């Protein structure tokens, strides 16, 4: 629990942000050479690489689905990504996050276009400073686009927390650990579709309602950054094509 205050009297958080301000977010698309699609995100100090392999033959074969592609997500944290050295064996937390991230991204993918194949989404958290699942989902959407996989919409994601009794947008590590609650959401704006929603901590029903509003606005902001990144990436690709 917090002993020092995390939000100053004039509403400034311990990293200088306002209550509803996002950290600096930088997406890079197409950064890996051995994948079908990839993206890198720096989200404040959080740094994540995502690689997509597929659609490709399912292995082992009996896992293939007759009418659609099988999507798998693997969320892993590098041993040096957190304060204390982490064993590389996947923790129960990593297992759960792999599941909810897969379920957050699946509704966006036209899996029915690729029956009997697998799409594997590999997420490597190089440095973790809060909201890694949100950053991972947002970057993975871009990696899927980079892989040329048709999608219903991008999935944008962000978290709202309660810190010193106030709701704040885009929770970083210190706020997550010392704050009162954490509530990440993933959202497809064009579908009004909540594809991930989790919460832990204590909030009133009224705070829940306000959180949902903030999450929606935050997701739209991330969505805009994702679209900017795609535009920038394809502009570069195009101009380099023209040069060629």
């Amino acid at each position, binding site marked *: 629990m917090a002993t020092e205050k995390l939000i100053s009297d004039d509403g400034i958080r311990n990293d200088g942000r306002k209550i509803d301000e996002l950290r600096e977010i930088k997406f890079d698309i197409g950064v890996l050479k051995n994948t079908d699609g990839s993206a890198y995100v720096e989200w404040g100090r959080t740094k994540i690489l995502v690689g997509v392999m597929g659609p490709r033959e399912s292995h082992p074969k009996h896992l293939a689905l007759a009418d659609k592609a099988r999507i798998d997500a693997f969320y892993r944290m590098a041993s040096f990504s957190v304060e204390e050295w982490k064993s590389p064996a996947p923790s129960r937390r990593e297992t759960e996050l792999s599941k909810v991230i897969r379920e957050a991204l699946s*509704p966006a993918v036209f899996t029915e276009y690729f029956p009997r194949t697998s799409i594997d989404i590999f997420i490597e958290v190089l440095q973790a400073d809060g909201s890694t699942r949100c950053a991972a989902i947002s970057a993975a959407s871009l990696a899927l686009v980079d892989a040329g996989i048709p999608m219903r919409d991008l999935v944008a994601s962000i978290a709202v927390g309660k810190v010193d009794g106030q709701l704040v947008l885009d929770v970083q590590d210190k706020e997550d650990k010392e704050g009162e609650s954490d509530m990440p959401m993933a959202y497809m704006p064009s*579908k009004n579709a*909540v594809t991930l929603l*989790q919460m*832990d901590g204590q909030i009133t*029903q009224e705070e829940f309602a306000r959180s949902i509003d903030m999450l929606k606005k935050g997701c739209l902001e991330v969505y805009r950054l994702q679209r900017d990144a795609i535009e920038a990436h394809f502009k570069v690709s195009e101009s380099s094509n023209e040069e060629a």
Partner: protein
Amino acid sequence: MSARIIPVVKRKQIIELSDSGKRTDGRSLTDYRNIEIIIGDIDKAEGSATVILGGTRVTAGVKFEIGDPFPDTPNEGVMQVSAEFVPFASPEFEPGKPDETAVELARVVDRGLRESKMLDTSKLCIEPGKRVWICHVDLYILDHCGNLIDTAALAGLCALLSAKMPEAKVKGDTVELTGKKLPMPFSGIVPINVTLAKIGDKLFADPSFEEEEVLDCRLSVAFMQKGDDEKSLMLCAMQKGEAGYMTIEEVTRAVELAKLKSQELRSLVSSKVNING
């Protein structure tokens, strides 16, 4: 491929029925199935409960073990929730296979119990920085007929509420168990988990196995409350599951519905076990 056609047909039936507020087993959309709670059936455990919700059966046992504290909370004991899928609970479980479903189940139940602060873990400390009680809450899934999360959450809660903890005394270098059992350090807060399934555009409380096979997604919401004090009612955990989605309006409706159902389930728990330990 016929295996995948059956769910499609079933889903259509279930959605059509739901348009007139009905379900295949005769319940209304917001009804739970019958709930049976047996307290203390495993008398070798420090606490235990079996919950049978419809045909779904979970036995939870609480055991204490002396262990090391976590480095960042040297003065607190540890509550640890785990889930085991016994292979006869469903033809789909294979023995010895680690399962993300079991991991998610345990972690969702864990968050509901933990975040409510129903248990004061600082009272589980034996020697600060050195030795603490590890309180295992182990959930054994014995029969799976749908809605494992709510059944397991109830079983875990009741097992915990029925538990007594062993008394330990530090004697110089060693710890001595006196053989006495002490009351658990409960706060009177009771968290209740309620799972709603979305199928088509309807929400279904307490989904059956058949309904789970065809759902879009589920939302599990834990509400906590201290005793009868309705003003203390708060959300303490949420988890959306499965590969579909809800709209924001559906999420809001689900939370409202979960609040109502949590009160019903909390009454049931209070009638079975002393919520103050």
